[in-house]
């Protein structure tokens, strides 16, 4: 090579992925999960999206304007009929369970492994209209071990087989998606491995832990942790749907912080309550007291995890927050929360009302997307 400062791969990676401007008919799976709801709200503000259809087993938890909700459990024949009837070209799969406290092991397995199989089955077939499949995966794919690299890149896999059921399921789900991508070269498959999410709105094991007055740490360990802001995750899912970016990408904000640094930014105190040996016994007794730390988080409190986030940035995506800013935002929210308590309205899905608003000839619809979520207040992806 004549110029040592330039790697041949750089030229390719520097130009952002071209935007795909075709009109879309989108299916959002897991509409009633946090991510499904947020994403659908964001997609509603894009005019070139003709149809947004959301499926889930339970009613939506967020107010949506034009997204149509279809109540479907994991039945691939029904899903397939919906996909074909609505001529869905883009499927965004947001349903993955990434917190073992949110679901029983059995239902998490059902959702993560069987559910993924069913959704992929609904998109398969020579005459399937699906051209694009976006899968929200998790950084738990990499696990958390002593001999991990400091920054996982997308090509790495975990050094040891998974310990926890949740991690095993996520690895299996990703393998299923990988097989699907191989067998269906006409479908652009994008997998986003999402780091731990923080934000004012989302509830994760880490937001819960950082909400405590004393944040538990493991004695003698100060792990490096990386987060991503909830808004960035929603933007990233949109970006993956609108830009040509096949492949696997890590999704994590810039900056890996030590846990002690994070606790300092939040203005909290650390409580090194977890012993380095016999951690399982201690968490067991904590669980009996009503404070549960999921197993996949315990490992992170010991070894931490960092990922290389450059590949997704190379497709033209820009994060709005660094990890540090994400933590600071969470801190602001935590200080404001006691003042704001009770002010926010809760939303309940009323089928009849939603159908009236969507289909009645008497409803005036002049400004589509004015109730749109996060997408309304920023540039619409340069499209």
């Amino acid at each position, binding site marked *: 090579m004549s110029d040592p400062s330039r790697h041949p791969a750089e030229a390719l990676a520097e130009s952002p992925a071209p935007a795909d401007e075709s009109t879309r008919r989108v299916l959002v799976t897991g509409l009633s999960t946090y991510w499904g709801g947020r994403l659908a709200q964001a997609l509603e503000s894009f005019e070139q999206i003709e149809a947004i259809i959301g499926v889930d087993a339970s009613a939506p938890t967020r107010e949506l304007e034009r997204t149509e909700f279809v109540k479907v459990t994991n039945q691939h024949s029904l899903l397939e009929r919906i996909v074909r009837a609505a001529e869905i070209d883009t499927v965004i799969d947001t349903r993955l369970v990434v917190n073992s406290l949110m679901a029983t092991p059995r239902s998490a397995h059902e959702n993560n492994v069987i559910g993924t199989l069913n959704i992929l089955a609904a998109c398969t077939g020579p005459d399937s209209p699906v051209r694009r499949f976006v899968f929200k995966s998790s950084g738990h794919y990499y696990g958390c071990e002593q*001999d*991990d690299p400091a920054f996982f890149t997308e090509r790495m896999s975990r050094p040891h087989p998974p310990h926890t059921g949740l991690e095993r399921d996520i690895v299996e789900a990703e393998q299923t998606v990988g097989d699907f991508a191989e067998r269906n070269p006409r479908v652009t498959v994008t997998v986003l491995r999402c780091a731990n999410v923080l934000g004012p709105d989302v509830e994760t094991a880490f937001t819960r832990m950082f909400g405590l007055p004393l944040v538990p740490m493991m004695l003698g360990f*100060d792990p490096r942790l990386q987060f991503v802001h909830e808004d960035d995750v929603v933007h990233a899912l949109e970006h993956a749907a609108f830009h040509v970016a096949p492949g696997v990408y890590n999704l994590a904000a810039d900056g890996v912080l*030590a846990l002690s640094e994070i606790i300092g930014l939040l203005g909290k105190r650390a409580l090194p309550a977890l012993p380095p040996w016999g951690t399982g016994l201690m968490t067991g007794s904590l669980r009996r007291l009503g404070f549960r730390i999921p197993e996949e988080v315990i490992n992170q409190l010991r070894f931490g995890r960092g990922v290389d986030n450059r590949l997704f*940035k190379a497709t033209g995506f820009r994060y709005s927050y660094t990890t540090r800013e994400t933590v600071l935002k969470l801190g602001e929210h935590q200080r404001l929360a006691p003042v704001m308590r009770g002010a926010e309205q809760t939303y309940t899905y009323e089928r009849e009302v939603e159908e009236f608003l969507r289909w009645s000839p008497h409803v005036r619809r002049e400004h589509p997307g004015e109730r749109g979520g996060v997408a309304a207040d920023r540039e619409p992806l340069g499209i």
Partner: protein
Amino acid sequence: MADERRTPLNAPVVAPESEEAALPARRPAEAPRDLLPAIEPERRLNDWGRSERVEGFMDRTLIEFFYRYWFRVEVEGIDNVPAESGALLVSNHAGALPPDAAMIAKAIRDEHPRPRPLYLTVEHFFKGFPGLSMLIPKIGGVAAHPANVHRLLYDERQLVLVFPEGRKGTEKLYRDRYRLRRFGRGGFVEAAMRAEAQLVPTCVVGAEEAMPVFGQVDILRRLTGLIYFPITPTFPWLGPLGMLGYLPAKFRIRFLEPIDTLALGGAEAAEDKALVQTLAQEIRAQIQENLHEMLAKRRSVWRG
């Protein structure tokens, strides 16, 4: 939206037959350097967990004392350490809790015209040991994973110190002093070649006498969960602090001519196992030779 700019729904979005198509399959082999996270000046730690504050404190106190007054370090060939590009320093290694890494880092910080931080590769063991796992990243320790070394050398263009003897070097007894052990499988050469970084062989004289190891107690090693359990003049007699009980041996550090791996074929040549092995052997011989020369000139262990 103009119709001709749309991608028709029935056409494959990614054209598999030609790479020049408007929408190429985008799988870059490696992400570019300029997308590395920017440095946030408000932070006191960097992404590797290195802490300016902890490091600065150690540097001003303990390491300063050892460097100036206890070991009275003398440095030769500091200009052989590159001022900006990534470089892998390869050194001999000895002693129970070897002070050589800290002294090399301090030498670069104090004597080099353009001081740079030095990252030290350490065993994965330290990441799992309570207490040490907090301290070691803060003073510049990084687990010896090939991916870590590559990121530091290639992407961040940093200085990295590696002891290819690894654990075999620290387990070495006093009677085997200055006899270099096997240099692993040449992984360090491969890492440097992949990263197109320079290799700087480094010789340290004095560390072997600063903390002579008279024996290794296997059963205590297993009981404590440490990677080795040495018997030294002060350890375990003075408890964990005995690990810092160094004898005041005179230190000499010599940086040898850097080897440009790019001239040897760079990243492509890293696949050539024979070349990698040869180079590793050559570096080992070079360090051994220089050690012999330095030892021959040394009149006294304590006064140099």
